[in-house]
């Protein structure tokens, strides 16, 4: 069974990785902000918050890696070099695949940078 159709004719695949990055960012920041502002809401330690951020990060990185792999596939595994600027269906697909691959790389690094503070901060106030 294919995960996605072989011919992708939607722009949405392009946005997958940045959307995952945005969702991860919101989960981390809003989660930590609510926990630290109202610790009485949940009976959890800050370690649980860090574990939650770690889990969200693993999920986000996996989704972005999947998006990157699909993009690589769409780009034809790098057989053609950019720029893909011929007015053909093939070049349009390759261009979209390559752009998606670059956006996935950016999102991957951004997700790591977002999660990095949780590696060092051990309490809400430090």
């Amino acid at each position, binding site marked *: 069974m294919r995960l996605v159709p072989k011919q992708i004719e939607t722009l949405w695949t392009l946005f997958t990785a940045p959307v995952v990055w945005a969702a991860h960012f919101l989960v981390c920041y809003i989660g930590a902000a609510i926990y630290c502002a109202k610790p009485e809401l949940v009976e959890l330690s800050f370690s649980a918050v860090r574990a939650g951020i770690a889990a969200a990060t693993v999920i986000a990185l996996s989704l972005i890696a999947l998006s990157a792999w699909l993009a690589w596939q769409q780009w034809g595994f790098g057989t053609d*070099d950019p720029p893909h600027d011929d007015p053909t269906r093939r070049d349009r697909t390759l261009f979209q695949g390559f752009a998606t691959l670059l956006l996935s*790389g950016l999102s991957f*690094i951004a997700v*790591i*940078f977002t999660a*990095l*503070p949780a*590696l*060092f*901060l*051990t*309490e809400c*106030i*430090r």
Partner: protein
Amino acid sequence: MGRYFSLSAASLLLASGSAGAQSVASTQSALEPAGAEAQQVAMLFWVMLSGGAVLWLGVVGLLLHAALVNRRRLAEKSASRVILWGGVVFPSVTLCALLAYALWLMPGLRPFAQASPAALRIEVTGKQFWWDVVYHPAQGPPVASANEIRLPVGERVELTLKSADVIHSFWIPPLGGKMDMIPGRSNRLSIMATKPGIFRGPCAEYCGTSHALMAFSAVAMAPEAFRSWLAVQAIPAEGAGASGGALFLRHGCGSCHSVAGTDARGLIGPDLSHVGSRATVAAGILPNTEDAVARFIARPDLIKPGSSMPAFDMLPPDDIRAIAAWLRGLR
């Protein structure tokens, strides 16, 4: 025109003050750390600066190499490899390492989370355009002061930072990091002075007309000297020239200012209980001399535009002199 005149008047006063015998706090450099937290911040600055310098030299070196030494075109394959490693992998890893180093420093800048409550907590509230200071020692009642912060060398002090009106920012560059004072919030900052000295702390967030004239002095002193100083601050000053005190009350100064041991209990302006012992007046901008105090009483709007204190130049000059002399005597 008016503002221009008053600002130049203030800077003239400032210049004459620093030339005089009065010790006006002036050290305000984060690159000359005199505190444990500031040491880390300075270290971070030097690491980032060195990293930036190495990267800059590398990039310029490559540019010169490509432009002057080796002008041969790269094959497309090796050009792609240079872009991938030099343009993607190397910057990502380097930025990750620098970010990790900065984050790794953070818990050390906020050590109060771990330790038992600090022996001394100082509550500082930013107001347009001065600083309300209350010392909360582990034992004994709180001690009110203003526009000057004294700290014991070698002891960690916790600062509680608040604002009564707009956003201000608290910063003593040689002693520690910068922290905003936000209305409705109370922020915590840790400071441990490692060297004695007098340092200048500016307001570091634009807060209104006289933002640049809102400063304070931070005095780091030996722990024993600090404790005896605090004990003196906790009791009313004896005061000199009681006539000035009577005039102070008669002209209504007490409705805005407090002076311990008198009927002056106002809470709108700075606490003046021991104003004579401070290095500066008018929130760090005037030397603490009788002349400067008298000028400020007469025309605070000229020295500090936008301040809430009205001008009292309608009072007889002799009364202003007497009040200034009395205030100077409150030590």
